[in-house]
């Protein structure tokens, strides 16, 4: 575990401001520390400046879409798990391959939280394995 904070820090990126705020509230309620960014560029800034345990990334965004953001993150810090959120069913395969988990918007908060928990656990166990 690389984080200093007792709470796992989640970076949430979505161009939909209202949706982002509501998602932040849900994640905080579930016990995460949440950082938000309204576009890919500012999201990547936070990703570089902060210690991030997991990323919840919207795919469809203007200017820089989730695929490009995920690719940059993988390139810079490959171990940070990425959850890709999308309203589309047919995401490009190479984009899906970049993410640890893809979640369809509208699956509901329970599903989201469960998948996020599993993703983080899986990432931390991989990290432990790597340390050992």
């Amino acid at each position, binding site marked *: 575990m690389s984080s200093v904070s007792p709470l796992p820090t989640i970076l949430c990126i979505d161009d*939909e401001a209202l*949706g982002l705020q509501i*998602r932040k509230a849900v994640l905080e*309620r579930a016990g995460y520390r949440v950082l938000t960014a309204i576009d890919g560029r500012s999201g990547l800034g936070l990703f570089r400046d902060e210690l991030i345990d997991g990323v919840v990334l919207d795919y469809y965004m*203007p200017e820089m879409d989730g695929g490009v953001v995920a690719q940059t993150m993988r390139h810079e810090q490959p171990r940070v798990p990425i959850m890709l959120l999308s*309203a*589309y069913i047919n995401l490009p395969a190479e984009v899906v391959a970049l993410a640890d988990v893809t979640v369809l918007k509208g699956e509901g908060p329970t599903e989201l939280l469960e998948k996020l928990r599993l993703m983080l656990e899986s990432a931390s166990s991989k990290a432990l394995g790597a340390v050992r």
Partner: protein
Amino acid sequence: MKLPEFNRALRQLVVLPLVLLVLMTGVVVWQIVAAARAQRALDHSDQITAQVQRLQNLIIDQETGLRGFQLTGDPGMLAPWTSALDPTQAQFEALRTMLADDPAQLGALNDLNKQYVQWLRFAHGVLNKDAAVLADPQLNQHGKQMMDRIRATARGMLQQQQDVRRHEYQRARRLQRRELYSLLISALVVGTILAVFIRHHVKTISISYLRQIAEITRRSEEVRDSQEWFKTTLESIGDAVIACETNGAVTFMNPVAEKLTGWLLNDAKGHPLEDVFRIVHESTREAAENPVEKVRRLGHVIGLANHTLLIARNGPEFVIDDSAAPIRNASGEMIGVVLVFRDVTEERRMQAALVASEKLAVAGRLAASIAHEIHNPLDSVANLHFLLEQENDPAQRAEYLRLAQQELGRTMQISRTMLSLYREPRAPIQLNLQELIEGVLLLLDRRLQHQGIRMEANISKALMVEGFPAELRQVFTNLIVNAIEAAGPRGRIRIRMEHAEAAELQGTGAVIEVADSGPGITEDVARRLFQPFFTTKGANGTGLGLWVSMGIVQKHGGAIRVANCNEPEWPGACVRVFLPARTLAWAGQPSA
């Protein structure tokens, strides 16, 4: 061979033989005349001989009379002497005339005359002497000598005349031979010339005749072939063809026309066209104008009215696309009318299917952005619901409920827009173009944002037009999506809308202009833009968008023009759509 040549040949065939025969006759006549002259000379010679002989006989008769008188002294014995005296003198005169052209014989005659005169003198002497004198033998001897000289001269003359006759005879024979030869030769020459000449001319004429025959045969074969060719062509072409006289009586139908009209050519021949070719307007079912009448009135090719329905004799109906044209003879006079038409029922069905398929493609393209639009607020609502369940603070709960309400409102607006896309009234309705285009922009908003496109929409004027909202929405969706794709990421699109005053051939209405900052269109693309299946988007385009849009706009009585903007700020394409304030469009009308 042309007619003048032929006439000249005929003239030559008459004139030349005539001339040759005249020449030949001339030669023959000349020969005959010459021969006759020779014969006359011969006769003349014979006459002279006879006359000389007669003269000689007369003189001998005188001598005989004289001798008898000498012997007997009987004056009765002198009868021959007396009777021959005058004839002898006349005979001399006659012979002198006859021998005028023969000096030698004339000289001999004169000698004879002289000798005769001497003898006469002697004879007179004898007559005047007495009988004793008369018996004198010397005297007799003298008389005998004189008479012998006369006889010798006469014989010489006869001999000479004999020579002349022989000469003349030979000449006559020669002339006869020459006459024969010249006749034969001239006949041969004339015959040969005529044979050669006639042979040449007859040969020329017969060659020319054979050529003419061959030419006529070839022409008639060509005519037959070309008739056959035209007939086969007309029978083989896929379009129906009916030909009729200017009075409308049917003269020809090809098999396709037979099939569509339900009439066989043999039955239809002579029938008025309106019996065989019954056409009505597709929707109103009013009888359409008789095309023969129209062609006769206008005198040129006409395309018949759109939406023409042909009712076959046996019942079936076909939507047809047709044209009629005058048939003119070489002098430009109208001798009939030909109708060409085609069953477009299937084509109409295909077009309708294509229109439907484009509608589906548009819906498909929109579905993705609609799903996204709806999923986002739904996701938020689900999240808010989750938070509400765990929240006890009433203020916080109220805030969550307000947010949920807001998100639901957004969802409903999108679903309403989506529904209106397919809810179509039966008749055109009054439409607020601003609302309509804003609705389209709302649905495309995500896409615009995603591409980072700056939209300059100057559509605040409240312009009303009549029309079918779903169809017009499809048109503007298509035009704006095209503009988005042309402009590319971070491009710009400008939408302007203005009132259009009535102009020639067009009433008042609205012009909507969509311009983009893309690369513009080439001339080649501009030419093919409105053709079905033409796309610049490769596998991502159906190639039906502009074609269907054009159909919709035309159905509304409007027009679409695509050109490059040619403004420094706007290098790309500029699509201008004119929509009339009032439309004559009706719901069942096909839009392409």
